Structures are given as C-alpha cells and as structure tokens.
C-alpha cells in the first residue's frame, strides 16, 4: 500500500509487521480507523530485517511504527501515539474523557495481560496439563470481557459505544486467532452460547472497512499455528 504522507504533517508512516500478529493487526486497524495512509512492510520474523532490528533493538519485535523514520514500538503505545500525533485525523481511538480513557486503558491492558498470555500457553504449553489450564484461563478471560462489554458499551455495538475505539482495537487484533482457534485446538472461543455479546461484536467489528484486509484468514492461521508448534517442539527436542 503506497504511502502518500502520513496525515497533516506530511511525514511518511510505515508499519513493520507480520500478518499473523494480533498486535500488528491492532495498529493497522487503528490506522484505518484514523484514515491514515501508511506503507505496510511485511517482515519475515524468522529472518528479521536490519531495519526492524535497528528500530526496535530492545525487543526486536513487530509491530514497529516508523513516523518520519522515528520508531515507536508496542502496539498499544503505537495506537496512543497515533491519537496524540494525529488529533485531527479520522476518528480518535481513545475517548476524550479522562475517566473513560482510564477504563479503556484498563481493559486493553487486561487483553494483553490475561487473554494473550493464556492464549500463548494454551497453544504452546509443553504439557497437556499446562495447555488445558491455560485454555480454562482463556475462557475465563473471555467471560470477563463479555462483562466488560456490557459495562463499556452502554448497550451499543462496540466497547466504545456507537463507534469502535481503543478496547475494540485492542481485542479486535485477536479476532483472527479467536476465530481460528477451533480449527487449531478444537475449542471454540467465540461462541454465541457462551459469550453472545463478544460473538456478535466480533462479527460487527470484522465487517468494518477498518478491519477488512487485516484480519487473517482462519485457515492460514491454523497452518501458521502448526508451523509455530512444530518449530517449538523441534527446538525442545533438540535441547
């Protein structure tokens, strides 16, 4: 996607990313919501570019946003940066009110801290017990987020209300994986019986223009997950 300058100040926006990453997904969704043009640079995370390593020497991970060449790392930090640096672009991702911002930040941090960690362990845990315990944690986190949806949405369609915002983006990055999970593990994470609000929200969010072309295909993710698991057990076997 060719860049035509990044919003008001004309400096170019680039995203160093990888299509399976829920964190990269978030950044791209936020850029789309803010109607910001950017160049999407696909990294091979098994063979990271010099640019990525130089832009994020501390973590060496995607996503990295480059704004006029200056790097910003960590997906939620990038999303907040986009709001700060482009206050007049498209729609603000975070709300204006300080209390609403604090609540949004709390739930975004919850997705990172409780949901993500459990999903990684559920997929990559070395024993059946570890994976089963982590899967229970994933379900518990989704149930908590179902409650959060009621609390935050005020009966509207998104966590942020009538239009998507910070928590929608924070969790939205995971929709690909949430959908792909039953192909990968047999456990259905987005289930209208268990968490009807989240299930409906995911459909609604996924059909937004901002999410189209970002959410990875479940079959592709399932294949990718197999590769990840094989790589990890291969590494364990050779130790």
């Amino acid at each position, binding site marked *: 996607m060719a860049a035509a300058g990044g919003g008001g100040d004309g400096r170019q926006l680039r995203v160093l990313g990888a299509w399976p990453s829920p964190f990269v997904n978030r950044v791209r969704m936020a850029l789309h919501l803010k109607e910001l043009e950017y160049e999407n640079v696909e990294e091979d995370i098994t063979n990271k570019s010099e640019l990525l390593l130089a832009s994020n020497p*501390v973590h060496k991970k995607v996503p990295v946003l480059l*704004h006029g060449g*200056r790097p*910003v*790392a*960590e997906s939620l*930090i*990038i999303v*907040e*940066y986009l709001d*700060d*640096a482009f206050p007049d672009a498209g729609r603000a991702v975070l709300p204006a009110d*300080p*209390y609403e*911002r*604090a*609540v949004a*930040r*709390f739930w975004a*941090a*919850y997705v990172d801290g409780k949901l993500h960690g459990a999903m990684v362990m559920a997929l990559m845990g070395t024993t059946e017990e570890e994976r089963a315990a982590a899967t229970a944690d994933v379900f518990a986190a989704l149930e*908590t987020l179902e409650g959060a949806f009621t609390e935050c949405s005020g009966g509207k369609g998104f966590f942020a209300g009538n239009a998507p915002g910070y928590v929608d983006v924070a969790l939205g990055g995971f929709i690909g994986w949430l959908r792909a999970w039953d192909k990968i593990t047999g456990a259905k994470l987005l289930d209208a019986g268990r968490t009807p609000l989240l299930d409906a929200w995911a459909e609604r969010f996924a059909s937004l223009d901002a999410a189209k072309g970002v959410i990875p295909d479940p079959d592709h993710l399932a294949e990718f997950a197999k590769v990840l698991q094989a790589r990890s057990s291969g590494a364990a076997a050779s130790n």
Partner: protein
Amino acid sequence: MAEKGVKVFGMWASPMVVRVEWALRLKGVEYEYVDEDLANKSADLLRYNPVTKKVPVLVHDGKPIAESTIIVEYIDEAWKGEYPIMPADPYDRAQARFWARYADEKCNPALFPIFTATGEAQRKVVHEAQQCLKTLETALEGKKFFGGDDVGYLDIVLGWYAHWLPVIEEVTGASVVTDEALPLMKAWFDRFLAVDVVKAALPDKDKLLAANKARREQLLSA
C-alpha cells in the same frame, strides 16, 4: 448522596501505591489514604476492583480506577492545569510509556529473583537485573530526571527503585545499583529522593527493612 473527593486504597509497603501518591502530591491534590490488609481485603476494595482485587485503586468522586500506571495517567489528565506529569510531545510520551512498560514487564521480573537467591545463583540473577536496568538507564542520558529538568511520568514509575532497591540490597547482601554498574541510575536515585514530594510519601525505611528481612527468612526456610 454522591461520593466526593479522592481516595487511595493502598498498602504501606507497596511500591505501586507510592506511584499514585507521588502523582497526587505533585498535582497538589488532597486525598484520603485507606491502608489495606492484603490478607483480609476490605469490602470496599473488592467492590471497587472486582477484576484484579489489587492495590492501588484510586476512587475519584466515587469512580474507581485500577493499575498504577493507568492511575498516574488519569491523574495527569483529570488535573490537567496542574503540574504536568506526561511529556507534552507525542513522541516523548510514547518513549516514556515504552520505558515504563519495559521496566514493569522486564526489569521487575528480573529483580524479584534476587530476593531469595543466594551464592552463585544470586550473582547470576543480579547480573541479569543489572543488564535490564542498564538498558533502562539509557533513557536518563544527559538528563537530570527521566522527565528532563523536572520529575515526570517515568520518574514516578521507576522511582520506587530508589527507595526499595537499597532495602533489598541490604536484606539480601546483593549489590545491584552501584556506581560502577549503574552510575546514572545511582545518581538519579539521590536526586529523586531529595524531592520533597517524593520524600513525603515514602514508607519508613526501618519498617520496610524489618518487613523484608522477615519475609525473606520466611521464604528461605519454606
């Protein structure tokens, strides 16, 4: 009747709670401090933070906020006209948030093992913690405080190191933040602890030493 005012639910020995108090004090905000017994949490705490049930929790006119760094940013925004805590420039804000996250997610887990490690194992974990702090220290280069000329967000987030790490060093016999290993950080400790607002919210050092000595003995004999 609507609840008015500012309350902080905390625990006297918690470094995360002190972050919140420093932020409120910098803003000149009066608050009521509620000390929790974490082994017997109050009904209020559980009502205000049902998700994680942890301290600190800030309650502002009846509305609760949890997670220390989130609370600090809230304080900055809610009392916008007072002392500025976050940097003004968007890029600087992103950098401050980056280092705060790095400290909490990488350095804190690197520091915890020092508490119960001994001998060769202690040397190893100290070295790893120092590597982490060394990376963090780069954010201080050429500056008096992480926030520049004055205390800012990152100083508030990292400031607990200045009071707690010397306690941990004394209790464990480990040397972590030394002039040789971390000269910038060591110098910053002294400058930070000299700030009036900082001093006013610190828990008593002797009390902290005694509590940590006791806790370590308990863990090592388990």
